[in-house]
């Protein structure tokens, strides 16, 4: 059915409230028939979507809530500053904190220059083509390698082949390989955020590409790069599987004296206490406490990075 001129005028002759044309069109009928259902479907679905988001949001808080509830009582000065005692059923977790800090920092010190340089190549030098595509594929796949496989690789390459043994340095190198894609990704984002006009201005003044990168692009993207470094650091600090075979041990009474020493680490300590400790039930509060310390460390770094990054983004807008 077509709306014709006649229908229109019919519709208008009656002033006041809108009057439906006598010859209601097929579409109008269909719209009216399904109208209530359409609205209902939309409401039900949108509520479901909102619910999904709520579940996701809640998951984080529920986990944190349980860790706080059961772990907070374990956190004392002694817990943070003492070494484990009496087969790890008493005492503190200082060696684990130190070990995790050293692992994370070491990994970043190694991965940051490589990651930043890779990102500079990808974003500033590389031209679209097979080489760029291959490198990207390599990075994506490296990001997808399971952490336990990194552990195997670290064991076979650093520990055995390069004869570094189960040590801090083997762990750092393994974690560096693992966090490399994270750093490349966030550095690229930081470089992309630098407006091209900066580059053009510098090149237009006769600077070479490298001079432009070094003096203009890098300083402008430094905050973004550092954010990425923090994210990479937190990722490395939280990993367990890669250090199981390469760096961490159940127990060592001393803090590491050299990079070739074995170490204790927070994530591994949680795993050990929770699954293989001498008295799993009795050390529960220590497990919660250790988990709480690890969460605080990792989420603290992440939150700082997120806040920092959103500030940078706002500034760039």
């Amino acid at each position, binding site marked *: 059915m*077509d*709306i*014709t*001129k006649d229908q*229109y005028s019919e*519709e*208008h002759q009656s*002033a*006041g*409230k*809108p009057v439906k044309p006598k010859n209601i*069109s*097929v*579409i*109008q009928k*269909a*719209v009216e*028939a*399904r*109208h209530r259902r*359409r*609205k209902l479907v939309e409401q039900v679905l949108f509520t479901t979507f909102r619910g999904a988001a709520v579940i996701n949001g809640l998951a984080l808080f529920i986990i944190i809530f349980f860790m706080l509830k059961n772990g907070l009582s374990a956190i004392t000065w002694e817990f943070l500053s003492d070494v484990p005692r009496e087969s790890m059923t008493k005492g503190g977790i200082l060696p684990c904190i130190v070990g995790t800090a050293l692992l994370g920092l070491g990994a970043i010190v190694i991965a940051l220059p490589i990651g930043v340089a890779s990102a500079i190549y990808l974003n500033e030098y590389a031209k679209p083509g097979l080489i760029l595509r291959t490198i990207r594929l390599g990075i994506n796949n490296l990001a997808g390698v399971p952490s336990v496989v990194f552990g195997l690789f670290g064991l076979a390459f650093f520990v055995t082949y390069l004869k570094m043994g189960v040590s801090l340095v083997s762990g750092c190198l393994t974690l560096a390989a693992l966090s490399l894609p994270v750093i490349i990704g966030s550095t690229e984002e930081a470089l992309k955020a630098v407006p091209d006009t900066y580059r053009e201005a510098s090149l237009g003044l006769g600077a070479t590409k490298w001079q432009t990168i070094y003096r203009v692009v890098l300083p402008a993207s430094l905050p973004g790069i550092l954010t990425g470094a923090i994210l990479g650091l937190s990722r490395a600090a939280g990993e367990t599987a890669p250090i199981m075979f390469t760096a961490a041990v159940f127990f060592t009474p001393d803090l590491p004296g050299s990079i070739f020493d074995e170490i204790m680490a927070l994530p591994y300590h949680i795993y050990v206490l929770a699954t293989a400790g001498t008295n799993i039930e009795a050390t529960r509060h220590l497990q919660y406490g250790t988990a709480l310390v690890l969460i605080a460390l990792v989420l603290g770094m992440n939150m700082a990075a997120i806040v920092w990054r959103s500030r940078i983004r706002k500034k760039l807008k």
Partner: protein
Amino acid sequence: MSPKPKMTSSNLDFYYGDFQALQDVNLEFHERQVTALIGPSGCGKSTYIRCLNRMNDLIPISRVEGRILLDDEDIYEPSLDVVMLRRRVGMVFQKPNPFPKSIFENTAYGLRVNGVKDKGFIQNRVEESLKRAALWDEVKDRLDDTALGLSGGQQQRLCIARALAVEPEVLLMDEPASALDPIATQKIEELIHELKELYTIIIVTHSMQQAARVSDMTAFFYMGKLIEFGDTDTMFTRPKLKQTEDYITGRFG
């Protein structure tokens, strides 16, 4: 002139947050007429046309004051369903925006979402709409091909066909030819001429010539205000206000 306008806006104000984009706009649109909205960019003409089918609802911080009537019904009435409104007030956008679907499915989209199931009806309506949009002869052998393979002008005519398929009463066109070449533009203009027999058409354009060619009435906007509104011929030959004359003759600064 027909006694009763199809659409009316009275005392319309529009805000983006704190910024007032439209100020006290009073306009009437009549059936079987083309009304052109002209004015320099940023004058509020696009904002205005998007108020007429409540497309601005999508902007979270926006606010409307005043009234817009469609056949005596206030379209900003809370009880009014915006989905129903948009079926009656169709819109064609500046950039052709066909869906990544076939030509047929693009045209049938509005019918399908509005719940029309009758296959024969859809078939007929698609053909009819494409014919009315002067596209049928060019696409009738490839209705199942993707719409993204069409030229820009064809895509825009497809978007018009798509809008016509749901039997709108008013057709809003937001610079429908600004992304097209002169030949495609001419086709669209001819089309507007034919379509005005059936629909109330409101078109935003930045081209003075286009406004003069296609419209019966012209409204000149400047800085969010309606400056002058009247018969297109009169507006272009004997504008009442100096400001309008300056803009139309290109002495605007």
